């Protein structure tokens, strides 16, 4: 006989999962429609019905370490067919987000990854850097026919690409709308990152490259 599990519901966990997008989780009445329509749910350990009740009961320990949560590929069939509108797909996604922030070494970063407002920002920074790298790289490769460049130049020029007033001005010049707000947010984020992080560290980067 298995040991009896002493239940300690964590209401904070429930609220957090709600906040992360699984707001309808308490509507679940355990009909198991989701487990049946899920195209990859196996017969012997079906999901996500059990995950739904674990979430409703705030049983963090039954969810955060649970591998089944990661098998889901967010097709959304369970949400479509759920008779209560409990949106199991969204709940699982929320649990995954929660798990990420639980396991992330930098808790704040983990949290930001989960936030719809902050995630584009986090993504924008490497994207901008990559864009910079590509544009700088292309140019330098073309010009390298005519001149020799140290390969380190690519890295320094990439990292040294600071953004500033012009980007902001361009962002602010966009017509009003929700997209504008997000673009401004991203722009500010990237600008601040480039000035503070890139800017303050470019000296060290150059030193490192040229000290060799």
């Amino acid at each position: 006989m298995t040991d009896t599990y002493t239940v300690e519901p964590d209401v904070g966990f429930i609220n957090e999962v709600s906040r992360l997008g699984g707001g309808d989780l308490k509507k679940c009445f355990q009909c198991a429609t989701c487990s049946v329509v899920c195209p990859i749910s196996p017969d012997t350990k079906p999901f996500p019905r059990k995950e739904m009740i674990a979430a409703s009961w705030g049983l963090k320990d039954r969810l955060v370490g649970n591998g089944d949560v990661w098998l889901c590929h967010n097709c959304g069939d369970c949400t479509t067919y759920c008779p209560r509108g409990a949106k199991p797909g969204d709940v699982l996604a929320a649990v995954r987000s929660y798990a990420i922030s639980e396991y992330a070494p930098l808790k704040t970063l983990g949290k930001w990854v989960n936030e719809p407002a902050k995630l584009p920002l986090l993504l924008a920074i490497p994207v901008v850097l990559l864009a910079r790298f590509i544009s700088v790289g292309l140019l330098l490769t073309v010009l390298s026919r005519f001149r020799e460049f140290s390969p380190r130049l690519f890295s320094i020029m990439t990292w040294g690409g600071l953004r500033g007033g012009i980007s902001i001005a361009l962002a602010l010049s966009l017509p009003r709308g929700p997209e504008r707000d997000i673009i401004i947010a991203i722009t500010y984020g990237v600008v601040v990152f480039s000035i503070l992080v890139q800017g303050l560290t470019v000296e060290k980067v150059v030193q490192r490259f040229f000290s060799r």
Partner: protein
Amino acid sequence: MTEEKTAPASGSILVVGGGISGLTTTLEAAEVGYEVFLVEKNPYLGGRVSQLNQYFPKLCPPTCGLEINFRRIKDNPNIHAFTLAEIEKIEGAPGNYSVTIRLQPRYVNENCTCCGACAEACETEIANGFNFGMNKTKAAYLPFEMAFPARYVLAPEIIGTEDAQRCKDACKYDAVDLDMESKSITLQVGAVVWATGWEPYDATKIDNLGFGQYENIITNMMMERMASPSGPTGGKILRPSDNGAPESVAFVQCAGSRDENHLPYCSYICCMASLKQATYVRERYPDAKIYIFYIDIRSPGQRYEKFYQKVKEDENIFLIKGKVAEVVEDPATKKVTVTAENAVTGEKMHQEADLVVLATGMQPTAASLKLPADLQVTEDGFLLNDFAKGGMFAAGCAAKPADVVTSNQSATGMALKAIQTLVRR
């Protein structure tokens, strides 16, 4: 029975709908002494319950109670019942309503003796609506054996054709009147009770349960008709694909009820109906395996509980908590495999069955039909009662999903509410 009448507003009540609730309201009010007009759109009284084989939990025939009610109607000159009649318009205020009723032609008059000669002569066949299209009937037909009024009907489709003339010629009693026309009458009444009842929810809308796609998936109302001796198979429960005897039957509960995508509420009766139908299957097939897939078994009240416990005792009836959300047909045998997760054991099961019955829910008539009066209707189509205002009331399933006992209680109560409106004018 069809009379034109204008009654003084002081003493009369209009009941819309001649099902069990409408009949009950009519009879109870008439037996207190009031004049009642009953309007029913079908050519027969009895509504949905006349399509049932038996009631739960006593497993008694609905025609037993209907017979007593029809006898009470026969003995009571206060009651004026109109069949093939619909409400065109109701205007006015509590205590004084002006009602316009449209009477559709039956094409058969009061000379009809139910001899059946017209049906024999008629050659056109039409889908039998009473049996949910599971068989055909002649276009001159008696809706069902104990139909009341006991009079044949000619389907409007054949009017003007040779067939209609054949029916007329076959009738020795001059009962076929091809010249009957639809007409309108106006009544003045003091109060109106809406007993417009329900329709079975359209199961084709539940796309993951295969109704309409796979032959051996039927609804609970179709099962009632099959089990009825007066039904399309003479009371035998058979697989539609090959008319063979099913060795296994799966009941899918909450097919369309308790579902935000379909009917968000619980339809009250389907759990009991499936348990009852399990007894039908057992009576005909002592060894058949019966599977009932449910979310919660609702058998409210002591007597329904006893019935449930009795059905549970059957060794070959299996009750599984887990909703069926997927059905697959084997094209060779036409058997259907239903899939559900047994929520208690935590394992998915794929159960193959010869016949699958979807326990579809009830949708109030007012959900699809706009009633021609100033009524408050909820999103789901149920009529709301405003007792303070009075005048118009909803009884039975027009107000909420309910079983026959509750509908009759509600109908009896609404008779009193209607009387109060007349008294308090």
